[in-house]
């Protein structure tokens, strides 16, 4: 049971991390990062470390919000013309 959970969660974390690095769009990167962080929290829960999981979500989710603010404020958005 734990092995399956570990496999699925790690797969999601890996996908999200690759997405975060590979994405050209800053906001997409920040969102993938959030998914990766929540995946890590899920890993902590599967290890029965609930406190660590909650702290992970609280602190890193807040960080992602601030990151998104900076991504929105400091980077230019290329306005793709509609087709």
């Amino acid at each position, binding site marked *: 049971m734990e092995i399956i959970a570990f496999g699925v969660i790690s797969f999601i974390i890996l996908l999200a991390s690759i997405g975060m690095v590979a994405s050209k*769009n800053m*906001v*997409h990167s920040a*969102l993938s990062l*959030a998914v990766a962080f*929540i995946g890590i929290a899920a890993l902590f829960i599967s290890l029965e470390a*609930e*406190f660590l999981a*909650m*702290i992970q*979500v*609280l602190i890193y*989710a*807040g960080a*992602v*919000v*601030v990151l*998104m*603010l900076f991504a*929105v404020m400091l980077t230019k*958005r290329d*306005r*793709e013309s*509609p*087709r």
Partner: protein
Amino acid sequence: MEYLLSLLVYLSNPWVKGLVGGIGLALAIAGSIVLLLWVERKFIGRLQHRYGPNRVGKFGILQLVVDGIKLLTKEDIIPDAADKTVFKLAPIIGFAIAFLPFLAIPFSETMIVSDLNVGILFILAVSSMAVVPTLMAGWSPNNKYNLLGGMRAAALMISYEVPMGLAIIGVVMLTDSMSMVEIVKAQEKIWFIFPQALGFVVFVVAAFMEAARLPFDLPEAESEIVQGWTTEFSGMKFAMLLFAEYIHSILASLLIVILFLGGWHGPILPAPIWILIKTFIVMLILMWMRATVPRVRIDQLLNVGWKVLIPLAMINIAFTGTARVILG
């Protein structure tokens, strides 16, 4: 009946309990939203010397059903310059995250889906995630009003989350536990509103900010930035964002009741009824505020969050700690 009762044994299985509890909670919340929206429109109508909805059904009680059908059948517009994936994901994620904290809310000593050791932290963590879909909705449609609303929501969240956490610390110090059930049990003799008066004030203001309702509804201030972060959303997507917002106000009033107003404790009536009555009264106060108080400016709000609420919460923590040491 016997057979139905024998099925209750399966509830000790965490998978079954989670599934049944989750579905039951989602249905109950959806039903209560429909009722509360009607109550709100009627109540605010009376406060403003109007009748409120009174055409569809007796006392206009079916108005919400009709509005729901209207929203369902409206055209679902996706702006051309929008980031389509994020635009489609925002309402779904927002809707889903809004329901999550209720898993750790106790309606009586046993009526709780999951009595986590870190219940109050779980609720704080999940409700802090709720601003991510708001930002997604603000950024994705490529509209300046959406973006302004989303940025304001983020500013609001950063300024209310810290005082809220600090106000909760006082309660946790008195309880010696972060489990929601333990927190309510500790209030059997005296509600925490009395020993934690300062913390209560801070928490109520922070919770009202979290609910993003009228004195603090800066993310969608309709007289300043059209409709704020929901401007470009239409039809069912808009309805989902609206629902998620409303669930946040219900959660805020439930938290006020559980942390400070004695949760399920009360004479005669059974526990879940008491918690519902208290939550309803807090919701009514929320609506009353909406009808009476004008909207604050964004700089005033940030000032209050950082320069008033955080120091007050710190004083509360120091006071609680000292009192605990002196009184044992």
